[in-house]
């Protein structure tokens, strides 16, 4: 239907970045998601960055209430949601003032003129109307009466003015869809599915969407359409996926691949709550979710479930992980397998609940009393969360140990095209539970990896007691013997170290030696990869090393680090990995640190690379 024969010139682009921003009630996240889905269906590679305020309802029209959604879409492979914005949609003055800094010179600016009244301008702190005072001259400004046109488009459907105004985001979407030559079909399907039971609302949103599209088509002022063709992705069937969904699916998959039931103990916290939400819907996958009274109950219930023989998981974010600390010590002591997911956000304390940060690495490494080592794996992108969940569970069960999984708000809410795997191709996770063999059962007897047996209640002859007090090796009896304690601390550490024999050697993106190694972990993958590619294209001898395994490190890491003149470690914290690398290897590294609640832009890393290798 909607894609009429173009009447205006279409200009081809390799890639573009669009940002929708407005009040948090304006439906910007929906607009962004729809644009993303449509672009992905067109075959673009996409990367997104939703950015919303912590206050659910800050006063309307204020800067505190601005919500944004950025989409980078491309006909080539991309790894980040884009540094600067090519087209910005601002639904009100507050959104304009807080986002305009990211619009590139000459970029397209679409604003809802109706919101630029006296009150709106005041709330945003404008003394003069930016639409008239010339301050936006360096952009292609289109101020559109979005509210008025939307009201007209939905007239006669019996909607209240408030309901009518709520369709504004569909108008804005329609206009941007036209601008970038996107089909309306996926969004029309979405409207049908979502509002099918409310015909007037469905019709209104449809009308608004088409009105936006037709506005672009007919209005003289906007005279070029842009086209970004499909990317050459590996053959396969794709979908767009967010990190938290990929993580939830990865957990369900891990449970099936290991013939286990999944038990999630969780207490709501941003940005981890969606893991609980998603999994709560998968009861027919034999998933049991427990919304506990607090994080301590969430993790201890998971310990109970682990003892029971389930695939036990707890998911939270920094403050919640802090509460779980004591229980994680119990999990380490009892040597039970389980997963502890930390979807990191800005800290300390409640910090920046909706913004991203990678500052909980120290917490994962050291945030418990006593010598309490835990393996740590970090996801690098939304789709990667799927695989990280399975890898973590493989390690947890093979070594009988609780494993930390780190993601962050940026990965959790961001999305990317994901090549849908076939379940039959995923590696199975083998687990065995002992049964009585006539000998006296020794709950802390160890195999060659030092893992103890996972004996579960209900098995005759294997009755045993575990707990937080130090245990004698082999027998598992309570022991205060000083020598035994030291031995057990060493054994628990050795168990973690042994994992290095079981994980792949570190791979590199670039030559094995050179002037500079960019060492990264977690969600900074995309910016670092893109920056290193840029450097490599300009002839610099720069290689990228992205860590998935943070404890233990891959066995060849030290050799890699020593093969470069300089090592740069960009992190969204004050240098936590940097400190570990320096302490461990006595290597003089350079940190690049940012803690603004935002991911790195590519240019920040490129600039740093240039300053180091000239």
């Amino acid at each position, binding site marked *: 239907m909607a894609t009429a024969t173009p009447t205006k010139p279409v200009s081809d682009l390799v890639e573009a970045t669009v940002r929708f921003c407005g009040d948090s009630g304006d439906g910007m996240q929906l607009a962004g998601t729809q644009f993303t*889905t449509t672009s*992905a*269906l067109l*075959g673009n590679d996409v990367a997104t960055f939703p950015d919303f305020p912590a206050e659910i309802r800050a006063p309307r029209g204020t800067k505190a209430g601005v919500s944004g959604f950025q989409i980078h879409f491309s006909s080539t492979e991309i790894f980040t949601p884009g540094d600067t914005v090519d087209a910005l949609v601002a639904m009100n003055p507050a959104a304009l003032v807080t986002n305009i800094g990211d619009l590139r010179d000459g970029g397209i600016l679409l604003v809802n003129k109706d919101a630029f009244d006296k009150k709106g301008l005041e709330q945003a702190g404008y003394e003069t109307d930016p639409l008239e005072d010339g301050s936006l001259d360096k952009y292609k400004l289109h101020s559109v009466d979005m509210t008025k046109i939307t009201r007209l488009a939905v007239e006669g459907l019996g909607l209240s003015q408030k309901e009518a105004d709520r369709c504004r985001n569909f108008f804005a979407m329609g206009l941007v869809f036209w601008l970038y030559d996107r089909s309306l079909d*996926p969004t029309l399907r979405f409207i049908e599915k979502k509002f099918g039971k409310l015909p007037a609302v469905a019709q209104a949103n449809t009308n608004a969407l088409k009105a936006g599209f037709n506005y672009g088509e007919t209005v003289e002022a906007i005279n070029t359409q842009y086209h970004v063709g*499909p990317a*050459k992705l590996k*053959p396969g*069937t*794709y*979908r*767009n996926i967010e990190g938290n969904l990929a993580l939830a*699916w990865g957990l*369900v998959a891990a449970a*099936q691949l290991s013939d286990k*039931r999944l*038990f999630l*103990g969780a207490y709501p916290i941003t940005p981890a709550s969606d893991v609980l939400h998603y999994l709560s819907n*998968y*009861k*027919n*996958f*034999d*998933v*049991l979710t*427990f919304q*506990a*009274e607090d994080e*301590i*109950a969430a993790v*201890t*219930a*998971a*310990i*109970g*479930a682990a*003892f*029971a*023989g389930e695939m*036990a998981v707890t998911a939270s974010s920094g403050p919640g992980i802090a509460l779980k600390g*004591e*229980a994680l*010590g*119990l999990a380490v002591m*009892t040597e039970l397998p389980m997963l502890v997911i930390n979807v990191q956000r800005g800290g300390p304390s409640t910090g920046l609940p909706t913004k991203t940060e990678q500052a909980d690495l120290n917490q994962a490494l050291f945030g418990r009393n006593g010598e309490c080592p835990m393996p740590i794996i970090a996801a690098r992108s939304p789709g990667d969360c799927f695989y990280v969940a399975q890898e973590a569970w493989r390690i947890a069960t093979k070594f009988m140990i609780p494993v930390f999984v780190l993601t962050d708000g940026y990965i959790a809410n961001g999305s990317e095209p994901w090549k*849908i*795997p076939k*379940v039959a191709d995923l590696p199975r996770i083998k687990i065995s539970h002992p049964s009585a063999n006539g000998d006296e059962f020794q709950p802390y007897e160890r195999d060659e990896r030092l893992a103890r047996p996972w004996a579960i*209640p*209900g*098995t*005759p*002859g294997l*009755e045993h*007691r*575990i*707990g*937080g007090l130090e245990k004698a090796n082999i027998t598992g*009896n*309570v022991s205060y013997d000083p020598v035994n304690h030291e031995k057990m601390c060493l054994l628990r550490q050795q168990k973690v170290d042994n994992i290095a024999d079981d994980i792949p050697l570190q791979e590199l993106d670039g030559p094995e030696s050179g002037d500079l190694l960019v060492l990264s972990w977690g969600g900074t993958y995309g910016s670092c990869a893109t920056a290193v590619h840029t450097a490599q294209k300009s002839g610099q001898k720069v290689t990228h090393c992205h860590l998935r395994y943070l404890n233990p490190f891959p066995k060849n890491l030290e050799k890699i680090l020593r093969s470069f003149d300089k090592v740069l470690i960009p992190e969204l914290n004050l240098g936590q990995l940097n400190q570990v690398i320096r302490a461990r290897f006595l290597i003089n590294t350079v940190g690049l640190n940012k803690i603004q609640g935002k991911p790195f832009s590519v240019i920040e890393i490129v600039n740093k690379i240039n300053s180091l290798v000239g």
Partner: protein
Amino acid sequence: MSIESTLPVLKPADFASDQDVRWCPGCGDYAILAQMKKMLPSLGVPRENIVFISGIGCSSRFPYYMNTYGIHSIHGRAPAVATGLKSARPDLQVWVITGDGDGLSIGGNHLMHAIRRNVDLNIVLFNNRIYGLTKGQYSPTSPLGKKTKSTPMGAVDNPLHPLSIAIGCEATFVARSIDTNIKHLGAVFKRAAEHRGTAFVEVYQNCNVFNDGAWEYAKDRETKDDTTLELEHGKPLIFGKERQKGVRLHGLDPEVVELGKGISEDDLLFHDERAAEPSLAYLLSRMRYEDGFPEPIGVFRCVDRPRYDDEVNKQIEHSLKDKGKGDLDTLFNSGETWTVE
């Protein structure tokens, strides 16, 4: 053939682990342990299907002394550990062993939620009105004015009453017993074990090292008949050595009366552990020795309500029935997908 008849008959000794019991000589915990070991064989539940979960405190060492499965967890969190275990494995019989400090101070939150969810657990709270393991600080059940190491001038915090709390959390089974009243204790444990849902049992336990004699009035041969009252379902509240005293209602308040002198059994309050409303159980939980009342022992309340562990597993069954067993390939390919050739 029923499965039971093929089970080996267990003896109390079969429930004893090989660990030395390390409570202070004379501690009330010994008697409680002994009654548990004695009672369990009567249930016909195989040893491997029984799990003891505890928090931290003297009493919480309990699981180490039982030859069953067990976890000695962390301070106050046993109800949460047990909730995870029991939700995952409703087939197991799960006991929670806790103290007045463990259960009501640090773990008050978890205790409250396990009870209101009605997870099928048997929670035994050893109440010695003191912190034993940390050597004698006052606990949430210590009386006002209690002098301890941390309250040299006397405690000014109002005490909590475990059964009132449990009833306030909508407990479906609430009972009380006394460490030295061994027959009664065993019988209460058995009833708790047989209850489907959270069974909350308070045991008056003597810490002879840090709070000796806290319950002397309820244990002393001379006084116990006047200071305690054994509850029986459907029977009037009668107590006293000669069973000459009773409790009746005066308006909404209980009052102690002498039988005879124009007052007959029929004038007394009758116990109804199955009352739908918890008001009677609550009233009983508030009768205190220091206020001139006998303190009830036995089962205060025993009613049926859906159990958390049962319900969550039913939801899984229903979902399986409604939607069929989830297929991951279908799930992954749901929604908007596209194919790259």
